[in-house]
C-alpha cells in the first residue's frame, strides 16, 4: 500500500513538473510580441496537468475527456481537496484552445487566467 502511494506521488510529481513547464512556456508566449492562442492552449494544458497531479496524488481516477476533468475540478473543490474551483476556468480556456481562429477570445482568456490565479501552487 505504501509503495502504491509512493508510485502515485511520483506520477503526480511528473504531472506537476509538466504543468510548471507549460506555465513557464505560456509566460514566454504572453510577452509582447504575444502569441495569445498558444499561450491560452498551454495555460489550459497546464491547469489540466495540475489538476491531474492533485487527483493522482489523492488516488482519484481521472479520464482524458476535457469536460470530465472540469467536473473533477469542481468535485475536488467541493471536497475541500483544492483551494480554488477551476472548473469554470477550464471550460472557458477549452474554447479558444480548441478553435485556432479565436485569437480575440484567447486574449480575453489570457487576461482572466493571469488575474484569477498566477502560481499553480494556488490550487494545492
Amino acid at each position, binding site marked *: 500500500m505504501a509503495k502504491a502511494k509512493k508510485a502515485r506521488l511520483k506520477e503526480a510529481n511528473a504531472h506537476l513538473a509538466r504543468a510548471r513547464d*507549460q506555465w*513557464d512556456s505560456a509566460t*514566454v508566449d504572453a510577452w509582447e510580441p504575444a502569441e495569445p492562442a498558444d499561450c491560452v492552449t*498551454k495555460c489550459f494544458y497546464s491547469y489540466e496537468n495540475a489538476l491531474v497531479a492533485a487527483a493522482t496524488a489523492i488516488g482519484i481516477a481521472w479520464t*482524458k475527456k476535457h469536460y470530465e476533468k472540469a467536473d473533477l475540478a469542481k468535485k475536488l473543490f467541493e471536497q475541500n481537496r483544492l483551494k480554488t474551483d477551476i472548473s469554470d476556468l477550464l*471550460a472557458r480556456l477549452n474554447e479558444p484552445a480548441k478553435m485556432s481562429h479565436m485569437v480575440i477570445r484567447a486574449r480575453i482568456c489570457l487576461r482572466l487566467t493571469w488575474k484569477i490565479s498566477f502560481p499553480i501552487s494556488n490550487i494545492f
Partner: protein
Amino acid sequence: MPAEPTYTSLIQDFIREIHSSNIDVEIAVILIGSVARSTHTSQSDLDLLILGDRPLLVKRHSGRFHVQVFTTQQFGERLRAGDDFAAWCVRYGVPIVTSKSWRNIVASEEAAIWPDWHEKIRHAARRLTLASALLEIGDSDAATEEMLYAASHTARAILLKNRIFPLSRPEMISQLRENDHERLAKVLQNLSYEIPTAEVLERDLRYIKRLLVFLDRPVYGEFVRSRQRRLLAKKNFVSDSVSAGNGRVPFKYRRAVTSSKIVP
C-alpha cells in the same frame, strides 16, 4: 440510477435556456460537427452554432457541449473571408431552430464561396509547433491532441486544394483514401483512435511538416520566420535587461525565454 440524458433532451434544454435569456432576439441553432453528420463516437463533443441578429447571452456549459456563438454579421464576414468553418456550417449544418437571417445566409452568394486552403496551412503549422513544444515538455497526451488538429488542418488543406469539401473528421479519413493520400489517412486514423508513443508522434510530426512545406513552402516558411522573429525580440529584451542589470525580468522567466526555440 437515472438514465443518461439523450442528445435530443440536452439540446432541447439548452435551446429553452437560450430563449429565456435572450428575449426578442432572433436566434438560429445549428447542429454541426460529427453529430450533424451522424459519424460521432462516444468521445465526440456535441457542437452547436448559435446565431443571433444581436450579440447573445449564452451561459457556459461545462459538459460535452461545444458552442460557437456569433452575430449574423460576424458569421457573414467569416463566410466572405473564405473561412472553412463557416462554409462547413452553411453546407452541412443541420438547423434545429431556424431564422430568417440563417435562411438568407444559406441562400446568399457568399454561401458558395470556396474556402481559402492556404489559411489551413497556417493553422496546421501553428498546431504543429505547439505539438512539438508539448512533446519536448513530455506531455504526450496534449501533443497527441495538437497533432490531431495539425493533421486535420493539413487534410482539409489538401482536400480543399483538390476542390473536395472536407466532411467530418471520421469521414475525412475515407476522403483522403479515395484521393490517394493513404499515409495521411493512416496518421489521422491513428491519432483519432489509438494512443501513439512519443516516437510515433515525432515521426508523424516530421511527416506533416514535409507535407506542409510541399503544399505551400512560402506560407509555411513565413509562419516559421515570423515565430522566430518574435522569439528573437523576446530574447533580445532579456539579454538587454540582463546587461543593463536592471532586473526587470525574473530569473525563471529569463531561463524560460532563453531555452525557448521554434521547432520545426
